[in-house]
């Protein structure tokens, strides 16, 4: 048994003992029975505490209800205290938490009487207000005996837990038709006719047509072989290019203002969720982030979960790590959705580079709209931002002149017009020579 793993007398118990003894001795020696009256509460508390003195340390277990939550969602930190001896009276706990984690009760402070209340009252509600991976707990658990005379405290670091907070995807929906892609599998109707399920037309038989496509009623009626044609089903391949080179603005979590990286991650999550829900393949490329840089294209909800987990771990790079080369996985008709605050020259260059390769590119502007109001106490900050935004507006205008669609993120439907335009101009944009 370690030195800390035992019950220890508290200052309250020492006070009761010493005052009781001193007052009693003085009362006897000085023949002052009134001092005995003064000693009575201390004698009573000391005797009571000794009679109910615990000897066996309780077992404390801590756990978290859910290890993965969405931004703004809450889970519960459970503390279980098993006291075989039954002499633990009060259990107090203090759960510390990192930034972006709210606790209820306030400050994560709880106290219960173990006999009367049980240990259910020790639960602390933990609410994560920003995406990311954080370490929660363990709570400091302090048990005391009668009159707070003996105390045993524990804080087992191995009982901490990692809480992964996925970005709260802003609700996003796009009614625009799919962008031209050459794939022939998926759930979307291709603009081309081919092997698929959806009826397109009936035409005369041509060499090479499959016999099972012959439309016999029409053939019998006309006396000429006809076949039914269908629209090809195609596979939409969406690449999310997340610019994590900079995090501009101040983040106050899900309940307050959002930084550029907040908007970027939440928008990327929303777009990914939309396309995954539609059965498309979605890939993720990180620009300048530490950690995972690329998630290969795939579909399905497990893949969506993987994408969101990678996004939740995004951290801006310490140094600008962008070699300027075209990332792998682009091309082949993919729709590239680049999410960026567009404040970094590297991101702007990257967008132009992608567009120059003839790839359908949609740039989503994730700069916080209230960036110029970030520091009301310092007017020069707002002024500096306005100057910066003027330069940025010039660069964005150049991008638009180069045929790159740039649209600010405004939530549901904000990309519809641009996606429709991309569909309209699909394949018509000439590829530039490098």
């Amino acid at each position, binding site marked *: *048994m370690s030195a800390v793993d*035992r*019950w*220890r*007398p*508290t*200052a*309250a*118990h020492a*006070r*009761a*003992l*010493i*005052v009781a*003894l*001193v*007052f009693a001795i*003085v009362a*006897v020696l*000085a*023949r*002052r*029975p*009134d*001092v*005995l*009256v*003064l000693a*009575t*509460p*201390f004698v*009573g*508390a000391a005797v*009571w505490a*000794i009679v109910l*003195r615990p*000897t*066996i*340390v309780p077992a404390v277990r801590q756990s978290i209800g859910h290890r993965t939550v969405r931004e703004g969602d809450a889970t519960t930190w459970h503390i279980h205290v098993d006291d075989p001896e039954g002499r633990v*009276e*009060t259990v*107090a706990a*203090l759960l510390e938490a990192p930034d972006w984690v709210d606790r209820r*009760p*306030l*400050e994560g*402070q*709880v*106290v*219960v*009487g173990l*006999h*009367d*209340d049980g240990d259910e*009252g020790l639960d602390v509600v933990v609410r994560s207000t920003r995406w990311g991976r954080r370490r929660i707990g363990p709570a400091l658990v302090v048990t005391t005996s009668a*009159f*707070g*005379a*003996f105390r*045993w405290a524990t804080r087992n670091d191995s009982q901490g837990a990692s809480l992964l907070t996925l970005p709260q995807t802003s609700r996003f929906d796009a009614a625009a038709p799919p962008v031209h892609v050459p794939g022939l599998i998926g759930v979307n109707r291709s603009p081309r006719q081919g092997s698929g399920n959806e009826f397109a037309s009936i035409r005369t038989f041509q060499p090479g047509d499959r016999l099972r496509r012959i439309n016999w009623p029409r053939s019998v009626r006309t006396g000429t072989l006809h076949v039914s044609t269908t629209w090809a089903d195609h596979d939409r391949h969406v690449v999310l290019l997340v610019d994590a080179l900079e995090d501009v603005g101040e983040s106050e979590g899900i309940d307050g203002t959002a930084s550029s990286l907040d908007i970027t991650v939440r928008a990327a999550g929303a777009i990914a969720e939309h396309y995954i829900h539609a059965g498309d393949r979605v890939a993720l490329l990180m620009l300048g982030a530490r950690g995972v840089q690329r998630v290969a294209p795939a579909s399905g909800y497990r893949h969506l979960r993987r994408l969101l987990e990678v996004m939740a771990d995004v951290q801006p790079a310490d140094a600008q790590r962008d070699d300027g080369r075209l990332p792998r996985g682009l091309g082949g008709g993919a729709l590239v959705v680049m999410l960026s605050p567009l404040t970094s020259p590297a991101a702007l260059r990257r967008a132009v580079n992608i567009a120059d390769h003839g790839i359908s590119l949609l740039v989503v502007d994730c700069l916080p709209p209230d960036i110029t109001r970030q520091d009301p106490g310092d007017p020069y900050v707002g002024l500096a931002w306005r100057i910066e935004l003027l330069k940025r507006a010039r660069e964005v205008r150049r991008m638009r002149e180069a045929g790159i669609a740039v649209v600010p993120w405004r939530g549901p439907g904000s990309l519809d017009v641009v996606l429709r335009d991309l569909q309209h101009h699909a394949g018509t944009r000439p590829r530039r020579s490098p």
Partner: protein
Amino acid sequence: MSEQAFQDSWWLLTRARGVGLLLRILVLVSPLAALVCTRAAGGPAPVVIEFGVVVLTLFCVVLPDSHLGLLVSLLAGVGWLATVDDTTTPWSLAMALTLLVFHTSLAAASVAAPGAAWTAALRRRWLLRCGVLAMACVASWLLVAAVNVYDVAASSALVAAALVVLAVAGLMVRDVTTDGAAGH
């Protein structure tokens, strides 16, 4: 007590609410009430003692889990001893009750953080305990009054026996508290 510990305790104190706040108010008020009892029973205590009690009480509010409460209790007792001559005054009962409130409030304040919300059952348990000890104080005062009424003669043998009992009790308490606390 290090400066860091004091700062941490002060920070926690600023978060006090509900029962935690009430306990700290009682910690602050009860020694002052004890001084009032002393004045009522025998006049003002020496200024040094009164000043010491007040200053140490202020620290006790911030640091309930310290030995400053011991000093406050002893100082209040010394002030009583030095000031009051009437051994049967009813103010001794009031004084005992204020010391009871002081000790219990300090002990209760040290079991949980100041911002923690106490459950009703926990409040009842501590109030019940306090009430039982208050009854013991009343019984003790009645016993002292009865001894005075019946005028029990002073006896050297009785004093010696009482000292022996106190010494044995002290040794037993020390053994139980230090060895028994080791746990299993």
